[in-house]
C-alpha cells in the first residue's frame, strides 16, 4: 500500500512546534523542552509517537486504539484533562507551547504513565449485576427505551478523566478510601436503571459505601468526559434525589443514618467525619471546590502538598431536599473544573509535580 504511505500530495509540510513534556518518575521529574515537527491533521498522540521514534525512545505513554475508544491515552494537556488521541494540534495556536503532564490525581509511574489502580479497586468494590433468577438465558426481554438510559453509562471507555478531575479526590489522597468517584457512580446508576437487575438498593449503596454524599454536583466530571456522558445530570442527581426522598421516610432515615455513621467513621480514618446531612452552608460551585489557600496554590502551579478542603456534602434546601442548584447558578453552562479564575495554559514554571510520597518542598 505504498500509495497510502505518501501523504498523497494533499498535506501541507509540517512546522516545528514547541512542547513541554513532563519526564520523570515517582522520585521527581521536570518539564522537558522539545521542538517537534507537526503535520496537518495530527493529534497530540501523533506528536508523542514522533518523539518516541526520534529523540525520546523511552518516553512512557499509554495508548491503544488511537481512536478515542479505549481510554488509555489520558493526560493533561495545557492543564486540561484530555485524551491525547482526541486532541487535535489544530486547536492550538501556531506559536503556542503545548505542555503535556500526567494525570494529577494518580501517583506517577513514569513520564505520562500513572498508577490508576485506585479505579480498578473501586470497580471491584461496586456490587456486580445481579441477574434475575426467574429468567433463562435467551428469555430476557427489554424495550429499547428502557435500556437506553443504562446504555448511556455503558459508553464509558474508562479513561478515568472524570476521576482525575473530581475535586473530592484530586488533591485529597485521604478521600480515596471512602469515595468511589463519578465513574463508579454511573456504574451504580447504570445498574439501578437496568430493567432486569435484581438488586434493589443501588442508590442506598452509593450513598452509604461509595461516598455519593461527598459529591457536591460541581459537574466537573461531566465537562471532561470524552464520551459526553451526562454524569451529573443523568446519574448523580437522580441517584441523590431518590436517596434523599427515601431518607425522609422516617423509618428508612433512622436506619440508614445509623448505618452510615458507623461506616464513615471506619472509612475515613483519622478524619473528623462530617455528617453530610448537617452541612447546610457549604459552597458547591466553580471555585467553591477550592478554598482560598488552595486557590493561591493553584496559581503557583500544581502543588501536591497544599492544604486541601475537606470533603463537602451537597447543601439541602429548607424542605430538606437537594437543591439542584446548578440550574440556578449565576453562570451559563457547567462551571470550569478548575475554578473560574484559573486560566490556561497554567504558567509552566509552576507545574512542579512533586509526588505525594516524596518529601514535600517547604513553602
Amino acid at each position, binding site marked *: 500500500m505504498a500509495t497510502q504511505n505518501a501523504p498523497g500530495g494533499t498535506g501541507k509540510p509540517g512546522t516545528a512546534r514547541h512542547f513541554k513534556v513532563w519526564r520523570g518518575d515517582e522520585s521527581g521529574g521536570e518539564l522537558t523542552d522539545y521542538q517537534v515537527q507537526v503535520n496537518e491533521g495530527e493529534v497530540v498522540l501523533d506528536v508523542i509517537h514522533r518523539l518516541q521514534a526520534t529523540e525520546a525512545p523511552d518516553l512512557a505513554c499509554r495508548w491503544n486504539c488511537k481512536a478515542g475508544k479505549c481510554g488509555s491515552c489520558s493526560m493533561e494537556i495545557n492543564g486540561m484533562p484530555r485524551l491525547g488521541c482526541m486532541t487535535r494540534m489544530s486547536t492550538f495556536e501556531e506559536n503556542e507551547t503545548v505542555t503535556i503532564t500526567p494525570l494529577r490525581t494518580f501517583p506517577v509511574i513514569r513520564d505520562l504513565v500513572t498508577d490508576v489502580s485506585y479505579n480498578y479497586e473501586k470497580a471491584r468494590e461496586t456490587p456486580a449485576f445481579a441477574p434475575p433468577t426467574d429468567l433463562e438465558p435467551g428469555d430476557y*426481554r427489554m424495550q429499547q427505551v428502557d435500556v437506553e438510559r443504562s446504555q448511556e453509562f455503558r459508553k464509558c471507555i474508562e479513561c478515568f478523566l472524570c476521576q482525575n478531575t473530581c475535586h473530592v479526590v484530586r488533591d485529597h489522597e485521604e478521600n480515596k478510601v471512602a469515595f468511589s468517584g463519578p465513574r463508579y457512580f454511573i456504574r451504580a446508576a447504570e445498574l439501578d436503571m437496568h430493567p432486569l437487575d435484581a438488586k434493589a438498593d443501588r442508590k442506598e449503596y452509593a450513598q452509604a459505601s461509595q461516598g455519593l454524599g461527598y459529591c457536591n454536583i460541581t459537574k466537573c466530571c461531566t465537562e471532561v468526559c470524552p464520551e459526553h456522558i451526562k454524569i451529573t445530570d443523568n446519574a448523580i442527581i437522580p441517584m441523590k434525589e431518590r436517596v434523599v426522598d427515601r431518607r425522609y421516610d422516617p423509618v428508612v432515615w433512622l436506619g440508614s443514618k445509623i448505618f452510615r455513621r458507623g461506616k464513615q467513621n471506619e472509612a475515613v480514618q483519622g478524619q473528623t467525619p462530617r455528617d453530610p446531612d448537617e452541612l447546610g452552608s457549604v459552597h458547591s460551585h466553580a471555585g467553591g471546590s477550592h478554598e482560598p489557600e488552595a486557590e493561591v496554590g493553584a496559581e503557583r502551579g500544581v502543588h501536591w502538598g497544599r492544604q486541601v478542603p475537606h470533603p463537602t456534602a451537597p447543601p439541602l434546601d429548607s424542605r430538606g431536599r437537594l437543591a439542584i442548584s446548578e440550574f440556578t447558578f449565576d453562570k451559563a453552562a457547567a462551571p470550569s473544573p478548575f475554578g473560574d479564575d484559573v486560566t490556561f495554559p497554567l504558567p509552566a514554571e509552576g507545574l512542579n509535580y512533586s509526588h505525594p510520597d516524596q518529601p514535600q518542598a517547604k513553602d
Partner: protein
Amino acid sequence: MTTRIERHHYDVVVIGAGGAGLRAAIEARLAGKRTAIISKSLFGKAHTVMAEGGAAAAMGNVNSRDNWQVHFRDTMRGGKFLNNFRMAELHAKESPQRIWELETYGALFDRTKDGKISQRNFGGHEYPRLAHVGDRTGLELIRTLQQKIVSLQQEDKKAHGDYEARIKVFAETTITELLLDGDRVAGAFGYYRESGEFVLFEAPAVVLATGGVGRSYLVTSNSWEYTGDGHALALRAGATLINMEFLQFHPTGMVWPVSVKGILVTESVRGDGGVLKNSEGKRFMFNYVPDVFRKQYAETEEEADRWYTDPDNNRRPPELLPRDEVARAINAEVKAGRGTPAGGVYLDIASRLPAEEVRRRLPSMYHQFKELADVDITAEPMEVGPTCHYVMGGVEVDPDSGAAAGHVQGLFAAGEVSGGMHGSNRLGGNSLSDLLVFGRRAGGHASAYAEGLAARPKVAAADVEAAVDRALAPLEREGGENPYTLQQDLQAVMGDLVGIIRRKGELEESLVKLADLRDRVTRVAASGGRRYNPGWHLALDLRNMLVVSECTARAALEREESRGGHTREDFPTMAPQWRTVNLVCSLDGDKVRLEHKPLPRMRGELIQLFDRAELAKYLTEEELADFDALTAEAHAEEAAN
C-alpha cells in the same frame, strides 16, 4: 544473574485479556481452577474494545428464517471453503448461547420491538445477524466480561476473604517466553511493564488469546499490542501455524486526514445505505461482483436501493460483498487512476440519509470523525481505502478443544491468534462470536487438561536464566539498531511487498529483506532503563513480528492462487486443488518450515447444505464426484423410506 524474579503458581494461565482471553478465564474459574489473566495493557483496553459492528449469532430475532445452518453456510462461503468446517459448525451452533449468556452477565444490547436482541445486516451475512450496541459492540463485550470477572472475584472474596483467591488479573504484563518441560507446557515468563521486573508463572496449562499481527503494516487499524506475540510463542513452543498468508485488509479504513489514518469506518455505514464512489462520482461496485456471488447481489442501482426497505424481494447492494471483494475493488479503482488524492475512494452516506438519521444510527462514528478530524460525515463523503485489519491465520488447533497442534501439550489457543475458523476470509461480526465460543472451549479444555495431569511439569532454572538474558540483551547492548527504525523498515517491507496485492518477484524480494532485518533485529538496542520503557518493549516485540511476517511471506509465495485475504496478481483466480491444502508453518531451530497439509473433509450432512452449482465453483472434480455419490445415496434412502 542476580535479577529478582517473582514466582506465581496457577492451574491455568490465560495470556490475553480480550474477548477470547476473558471468556476462557471465566470458564477456567468456573471449573474451579486457579486462573491468571495476563495482558500487555490495562484491564479492559484490549483490542476487542475497538470492534464496532457487532457479534454474529443466528438467533433469528429479526428474520426468523435464520438458523445455524444458514450461518454455517455464510461462514464457509466467506472463507471460500478453506475454513475448518468443524470450527465453523461449532461456531454457528453455539454463538447464540454465548450471546444470550452475556445478557446474564449484564450486557445491554440494542433491542427489537418485541424486546429481543436486535440484529443488523452485515457484509456476507444472508440475514440480519449481528447483535450490536450502537457501533460500540466490542466495548460492550469486553466490559461485560470484565464485569463478570469482577463478579466472580466478589464471590471469591465472600468465600475466601480475598478477591484474588481464584482469579487474578496481571495488567501491563508482557509474556516473552513459554517454558516447557519436555513437550509439556510448564509456565510462562515475562516482565511487568511498570517496573521492568521479571515474573514467572508456573502452570501446566496456558491459553493463548493474544490477538493479531497488524503492527507489521503501516496503515493498520491495530494497536501497538498486535505484534504477533502469541503466534511466535506458539511456534517457539513447538506448535504450528496455519493459513498465515491470509490477512484481511478492511476495505474502508480512513486514509485522510492523517490523524484518522487507519481508523475503520464500520461496515454498518454500508449496511445502512452508504455507497462507494470513485473520483468520477461513479458507484463502481456493480462492476466487481464475482461470479460466485452473482445470484445474491443486485445488478442495478434501483434494485440495490430497494433492498434496504424490502430485503426479501430484492437482492443486496454490491457494497455489501465480503470485505476482501470490496478491498480489491477499491484497490483496482485506485490503481486505474480513479482514486482520491490520498489514494482511496469516497464512501458517501451524507447524500443518502438525512443528517439526523446518520447521527442516530452511527453515533460514535459521527462523533469520532467530528472530534478527531473535524470531518462531518453527515455533510461530506469520507475518504477510505484498504487497511490491515485482521489475520485469519494462526495457531493450528483441535476444533473442539482449542488444543494447539504440533508436538506441544498443555497449550491452547482461542480468538484471533488461532487459525482455521475463518478460512481465507473472515466475515464481519464472526470474530466477536468466535472469541466467545472458542474462548469458552479453550478455557474449559485447558482446565480439564490441568485436572488430568498426574504430576505438574517443572520449569527448568536454566530456561528461566536464558529468558532473563534474552530480555535484558537490548538494554545492555551499546550503539545497536534503533527499534523504531527497525519497525518502520519492517512495515515498509510488508506493506510494499506482502500487501494486499502480491506478486512472485516481490514476495521473493521480501524474504531476502526479512532475512536482512532478522539479522539487524539481533543487534537491536534500547536506551533508558527498565521502568515503563516503550523502546525496550518494542525491541523485544520485534523478534515476534519478524518471525510471523516471515511465515506470512513464505506462505504467500507458496500459495499460487487468489483466495479470500490472499491475492496474487500472477495467479488471479481460485484454484480448486489449492482449496484442499492448508499451508502449515513450524520452526526448525530458528528457520521457518512450510508444509502442505490436506484440509479435513466436510461431513456429509454439512456439505449437503450447499447447492451443487455453488460447490462446483470451489471443489475439485473428485470432490464433486463424491458429493454426487452422497446425494444419490440420500435420494435412494429417501425413496426406500
